[in-house]
């Protein structure tokens, strides 16, 4: 199955991709590592953030790794560089 998800980029990842938001077709279910790999294929410069990034799926943090997520059309998947609020 494939889901049309809304990928959101923030902070440094916007500068690396040149994009703030895009719709991407993603197989589901899928591991968070494979989501990251898919985004790297679209935007190779994201590799600068390798090991310094987590994802947020439907506003819940997911580390890049073996965790499997199920995605539906319209779900938000965010690329989350290290935080610096406060």
């Amino acid at each position, binding site marked *: 199955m494939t889901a049309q998800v809304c990928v959101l980029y923030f902070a440094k990842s916007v500068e690396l991709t040149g994009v703030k938001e895009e719709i991407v077709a993603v197989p589901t279910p899928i591991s968070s590592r494979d989501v990251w790999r898919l985004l790297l294929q679209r935007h190779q410069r994201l590799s600068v953030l390798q090991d310094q*990034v987590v994802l947020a799926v439907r506003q819940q943090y997911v*580390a890049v790794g073996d965790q499997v997520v199920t995605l539906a059309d319209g779900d938000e998947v*965010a690329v989350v*560089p*290290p*935080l*610096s*609020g*406060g």
Partner: protein
Amino acid sequence: DAASTPTSLSRDWLSVQEVVDAVSSSSCGAISVFIGTTREDELDGRKVIGLEYEAYELMAQSEFTKLCADIRERWPTVTHICVHHRLGWVRPVLPWQISSPHRHDSQQAIQRCIDQLKANIPIWKKEVYDTQDSSWKENAECSWSTRNKSSSESV
């Protein structure tokens, strides 16, 4: 009773008085306030002329809600929590206030509030220098920051 916990992300100038008024209560003898400001830093000869804040707003709101629940569970006497954070181009100010009947709880709670905000709330800060370049900062509290490389635990 779940006392109100107004939190907001705003592109406008923040009023400390407004935040004080939001947490004041006749049952509270203590209000702890944290005001985060812009330091006039110099880094390698470059002077910080301002900051730009960006947020994943929908998720920052849900994470604030979780943070307030965490604070209330640890310090049940905490009555009101109010957190305001600027977005966009900023000079100061980030006023945060927590009120409680006695000062110990509100002082402890605000420490945790700041630590947890820096670790979990999806907000990013970019320093802009007088040399016209800029850099995205990273909180050491954030478990996936390069400043915290010893940690590989999942969030």
